[in-house]
């Protein structure tokens, strides 16, 4: 308690700023701009399956990756999904024991948009609470990403993915665009 007393009596007018490097300042700015989307209220399942453009490094949604380093099936994909404003290309699915990793590319406005993926397989397993996702910004309007599905059944033949684009305005209001559902057939694409 005595330490806390000292802290509470700290007079901020007497504080002398410390030196900070240019890199440190840039890191803070980058973190703030990336984290801002996470501070909005998003439905529970959406948080669990979040694929947040630009927040891949944020620690809030940091489920442990269970992807094995030894894939048992490596499937090249070329499934494309278009809407008026958005384009998704699902490039590859890597299936390991109990996990599947789906790789994709998409054109999203890095500053204002992020997506969530609604994923179900042919056994009607919903991957809303076990998937880890991350994306890498390629340009301001283009990103590569991946989503890891845990507890994935190796004999799954199809996955149905519905991307939902969340667009945020300056006031933090979010509008959602639910894209069409795309079916990814795993066996027929296997190489």
């Amino acid at each position, binding site marked *: 308690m005595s330490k*806390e007393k000292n802290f*509470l009596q700290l007079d901020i007018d007497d*504080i002398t*700023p410390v030196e*900070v490097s240019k890199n440190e*300042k840039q890191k803070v700015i980058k973190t703030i701009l990336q984290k*801002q989307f996470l*501070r909005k209220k998003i439905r529970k399942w959406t*948080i669990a399956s979040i694929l947040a453009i630009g927040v891949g490094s944020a620690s809030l*949604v940091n489920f442990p990756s269970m992807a094995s380093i030894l894939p048992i099936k490596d499937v090249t994909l070329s499934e494309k999904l278009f809407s008026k404003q958005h384009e998704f290309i699902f490039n590859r699915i890597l299936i390991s024991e109990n996990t599947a990793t789906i790789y994709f590319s998409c054109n999203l406005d890095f500053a204002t948009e992020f997506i969530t993926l609604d994923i179900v397989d042919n056994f009607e397993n919903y991957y809303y609470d076990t998937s880890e996702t991350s994306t890498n910004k390629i340009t301001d309007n283009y990103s590569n990403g991946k989503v890891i599905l845990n507890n994935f059944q190796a004999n799954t033949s199809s996955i149905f993915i519905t991307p939902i684009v969340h667009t945020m305005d300056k006031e933090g209001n979010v509008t959602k665009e639910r894209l069409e559902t795309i079916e990814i057939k795993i066996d027929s694409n296997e190489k």
Partner: protein
Amino acid sequence: MNDFIQRLQRHDEKALKYVVEHYLGFVKAITLKILEKPSDYMLVEECVNDVFLLIWQKSNYFLGEEADFKRWIGMITKYKAIDLYRKQQKQLATLPMENIPPLIAPDNIEQQLDKLYAKEQLLLEIMHLPDLDRELFLMRYYLEYTNNEIAEILHISKSAVENRLYRGKKKLAKNPKLQECWT
């Protein structure tokens, strides 16, 4: 940049860069005074990021001139850092290794976020109070000290704390957001 506060309130990224450029050293200095151990470096970083994120998203809560802005940031930093310090101390005191909870579970993320938002909202609302009441209310409702603890810290009697809180709350009865927080 003369109009950085207005620009910040319009979410102009240049204003954010200006604020980080000019106030990061100040925010970090306050944070280091409170979370000072080298092992707490991650906590220092978390606190600094939280402060700037709050400023970036909620700068419209700030009412005043540039000179007041520095004090506003300073107060937010001080109380956020003390809050983090207290949380850390509680964890160290009450969590033996075998009882450490699992990594954050999806089911309680939303609950935790709600709690975080409510607490930050409270911090910003209390920042609008007059100087005299502000620290007392921050101690009671943001840091969640008991009236006894506040009395000990401020070297006043418990009944004096209760009286001041009671009078303060009466004055603030018109603020529905604050009412929600302490009922």
